[in-house]
């Protein structure tokens, strides 16, 4: 890219603030008109054209360059200037985006319509031929402005820097899986079916509360010291609770999981977890 082209590209950088745009810079002097005898490398002009986001942008530039309001477009003048640009591009055999030519045609049409004297009856429906163009220019300019506003917002990594602290003691934890009760029950049913448990006499007669109570009693008793028999009962549970506990103790005795000791008749009964004979 030539130095001139770089300058032009620089001018095109966002946030877009279009100045009077020189076609080229010759010995430090910006050139605003294209000298007929001067050769400008086509790529430099391409860069110039790239500075515009299409025909609406070019038109806005031409209007704003003269400090004019969109609502008060000097159509003849602007059209002439627009055509000049287009001609220039053509002379340089630059490939022009089709949109630029469409706009040229539209401008020419508006101009011709405005030059024609308007019949009175047409006044009724009478939309100003420029209205559509003005609407589009206005709409485009809003978003051109919005893009600039957006660009000026603080951007992450450009204006705003996120922070991050090291976590040296990071423990890659893994949450334990969830388990659904129905899955558990289905698993049990399957294993019992497999083991043919339903058809044999392995199925316990006791309610599950008995088994649960056996576990609780085992949790309470210790192998290394005696526990008072009464401590195993919780009278606040009422008669049923006491019965279940008693049955649990009997079942544990039967399975020799606990031992019971009574030193004398009617003396206190003590319970301890069974210990292996070899460990005694």
């Amino acid at each position, binding site marked *: 890219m030539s130095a001139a082209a770089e300058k032009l590209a620089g001018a*095109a*950088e*966002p946030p877009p*603030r*279009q100045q009077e745009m020189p076609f080229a810079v010759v010995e430090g002097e910006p050139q605003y008109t294209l000298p007929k005898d001067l050769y400008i490398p086509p790529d430099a002009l391409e860069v110039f054209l790239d500075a515009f*986001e*299409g*025909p*609406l*942008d070019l038109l*806005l530039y031409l209007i*704003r360059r*003269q*400090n*004019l*309001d*969109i*609502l*008060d477009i*000097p159509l*003849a*003048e602007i059209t002439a200037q627009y055509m000049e640009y287009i001609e220039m591009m053509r002379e340089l055999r630059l490939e022009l985006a089709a*949109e630029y030519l469409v*706009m040229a045609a539209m401008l020419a049409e508006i101009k011709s319509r*405005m030059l024609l004297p*308007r019949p009175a009856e047409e006044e009724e429906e009478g*939309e*100003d*031929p*420029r*209205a559509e163009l*003005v*609407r*589009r220019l*206005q*709409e*485009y*300019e809003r*978003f*051109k*402005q*919005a*893009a*600039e*506003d*957006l*660009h000026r*917002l603080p*951007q*992450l*990594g*450009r*204006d*705003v*820097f*996120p*922070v*991050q*602290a*090291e976590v040296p003691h990071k423990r890659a934890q893994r949450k334990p899986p969830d388990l659904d009760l129905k899955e558990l029950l289905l698993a049990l049913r399957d294993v019992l079916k497999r083991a043919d448990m339903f058809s044999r006499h392995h199925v316990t007669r006791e309610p599950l509360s008995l088994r649960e109570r056996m576990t609780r009693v085992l949790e309470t008793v210790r192998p290394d010291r005696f526990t008072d028999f009464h401590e195993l009962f919780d009278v606040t549970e009422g008669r049923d609770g006491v019965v279940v506990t008693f049955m649990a103790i009997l079942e544990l005795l039967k399975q020799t999981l606990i031992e019971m000791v009574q030193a004398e008749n009617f003396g206190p009964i003590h319970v301890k977890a069974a210990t292996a004979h070899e460990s005694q």
Partner: protein
Amino acid sequence: MNPSEHLKQIVEAALLAAGRPLGLDALQALFDELERPHKNRLRQVLEELAADYEGRGIEVVEVASGWRIQVRKECSPWVSRLWEEKPGRYSRALMETLALIAYRQPITRGEIEEIRGVSVSSNIVRTLLEREWVRVVGHRDVPGRPALYGTTRQFLDYFGLKSLDDLPALAELKDLDSLEGELELPDPDRESVAVGSGEPPAQKPHEEA
């Protein structure tokens, strides 16, 4: 450590460690169910933290996806020297496309092109999608079923916005009625007079923007 007593420390550590904004749900998820703080309590802690950071090199800000700790703007000139390479700038075409999607979402590519008056390159759309600033939110029920684009929370986060409402206001469109009025007399003579007349333009000229 007791999490309820040291809630502020834990929240601070998490925000600093995360490297992304954390919402209230994400903050709650740090705690076991039994010790999980209420959202109001978390909000309060975040406010306390923001107050603690007064006069510090960092600040707590709320963006679309939650709270983020970032370098205070005043420190940016020095901090930015940590990186030799400056971040790339986005082209006007990209910013205009993004602005149209942000303000006019959901919008199709064709509708963007209509307003901009030029075609939108696939590169731009791809870049916006890759940056996760925009996403396809649906399809317009017309022939070809073109994709409708909308912005994402990442877009808001990137520009430090809490919601789309925080976007800079879009310039007012001039009332079409008044516009018609002003255009009433298409007098070719007036046009040539208008050139260079130096009338103060109704809208702020770009050069001053």
